[in-house]
């Protein structure tokens, strides 16, 4: 058994008196496909922010490939190989699609031919035709693809997809899932946070469910959906009526 690529020990985060997350222990294995589910406000995005360094946890530690990165700023974690997409796409406006990808290529590690790498990634997500367009001209699906392209252009080891499929049609969801699956086959561990259940169930090898900042269930898609605690979170109110 290999060692985890990413692991959290007792990670906690509060905003004032409200404890948004934790304490949480969670490991991610290399090339694993991990799904994170849970209702709104369960702490999923807080967890991601603690992993990527947008937030500093109040206590606990985050380790990447065995090294403690709890005190590292976001840009250093990105350089180590932790990459993410945003729930609400955050393209670099005022720049073309290609330029959007040149930013991580400039600042991550030495890529010798940046334009070729950018073109390659745009091709893999199906955005080649839009390469020279300003990012503000993109459709919702194209923005989601740009988020993915920008996250994976620097060859990350871990990709966190934060609701990468919100607002997309079924066919578009399949398209994004195919991109993520292909990426995973190339060796990238993927964390998928998603409200679209059939997508996250199909994609993930393991699913964890959060509720009130706590990890309440972990297992395969089947195990998690059968878990009474998960059922209570998702269907609890219906059971009473």
């Amino acid at each position, binding site marked *: 058994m290999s060692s985890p690529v990413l692991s959290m020990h007792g990670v906690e985060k509060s905003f004032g008196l409200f404890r948004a997350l934790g304490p949480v222990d969670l490991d991610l294995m290399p090339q694993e496909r991990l799904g994170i589910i849970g209702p709104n406000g369960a702490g999923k995005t807080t967890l991601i922010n603690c992993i990527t360094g947008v937030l500093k946890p109040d206590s606990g530690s985050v380790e990447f490939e065995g090294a403690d990165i709890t005190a590292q700023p976001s*840009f250093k974690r990105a350089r180590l190989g932790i990459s993410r997409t945003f729930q609400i796409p955050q393209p670099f406006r005022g*720049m073309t699609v290609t330029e959007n990808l040149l930013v*991580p290529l400039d*600042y991550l590690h030495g890529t010798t031919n940046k334009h070729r790498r950018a073109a390659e990634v745009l091709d893999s997500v199906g955005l080649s035709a839009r390469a020279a367009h300003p990012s503000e001209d993109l459709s919702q699906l194209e923005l989601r693809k740009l988020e993915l392209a920008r996250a994976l252009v620097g060859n990350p080891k871990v990709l966190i997809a934060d609701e990468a499929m919100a607002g997309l049609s079924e066919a578009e969801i399949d398209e994004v899932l195919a991109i993520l699956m292909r990426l995973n086959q190339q060796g990238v561990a993927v964390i998928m946070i998603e409200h679209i259940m059939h997508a996250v169930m199909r994609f993930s090898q393991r699913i964890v469910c959060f509720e009130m900042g706590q990890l309440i269930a972990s297992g395969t898609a089947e195990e998690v959906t059968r878990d009474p605690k998960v059922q209570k979170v998702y269907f609890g109110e219906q059971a009473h009526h």
Partner: protein
Amino acid sequence: MTRNSKIFLAAALAVLLVGLLAPHVLKNPFYFFAGYVILQYVVIATGWNILGGYAGYINFGAAGFFGAGAYASAFLFNTFDIPLWGGLVAACLIGALLGVLMGYLTLRIQGVYFAIATLGLVIILETIIHNIPALGGARGIVVYGPPPPAWAAGPSQYMFFLMLLIAVASVSLARWMQISWVGRGLRAVRASENAAECSGVPTLRLKLLACAASGAVLAAAGAPYPFYTSFVEPVTVFSLLIGLNAIAMPLIGGTRTWLGPVIGALLLASTQQIATITISSELNILFVGIVLIAFVALAPNGILGLVARRSRETPR
């Protein structure tokens, strides 16, 4: 080097050559006296735009950097006999240091708060100068610069060429920053600081770099000023007009590229020079205000923005 960079280099050399030969054609030194001020504003607008245009941080304190540069070169010359070029280097260093200091204290705050903090910088510096007798206090300092070198046609022509050199150097720096990783990083920060940071951009460091470069260029614009007027005093070098012009010129020309501030400064500063002689020097500020309001309302992306929109729309 790309094709555009070669064109830019050729154009920069051509501009310098024209500036060097111009005194042989134009005999009236007033053209150079007025031209100096226009070029000084090209430098100021270019320096301001590195932070204001590329990174989106609106600095109201351009006059603070300009004044610091002017006082640095005047003080070093009068006290230690350090020639103008030495004063220029010192001004750049002080400007960069002041920029980093200002950035470190204020970059965490954004929008209007940042603008107000930078305005405070001017008042602080002006107050400090007012109260230091060694820097002349409110009376100012008289600077008797050396006579111009023999190859120059006269002091105005010499100062003009010197400012032209500074302008070409500043615009080259601004252009390099714009087209390189620095500019891409700053535009990314401007669009989304979080997304930039998660793409590996060290956002704080990069913004401090922009502050330093912007501050150095703004201070460089002020360094030759005491030699140009033979006199520095706090009220003129920390003047509101400098800070206002520094913002108005890039906004009028367009803040996205290095060319915008150059166009804005050439247009607005020449109009101001013409208005000063023909109408009244006091009407300048009113004029800047009206032009600024007109552009903010009608062409928020400046002249270059208008041109880009026109050229994008015609093929359709």
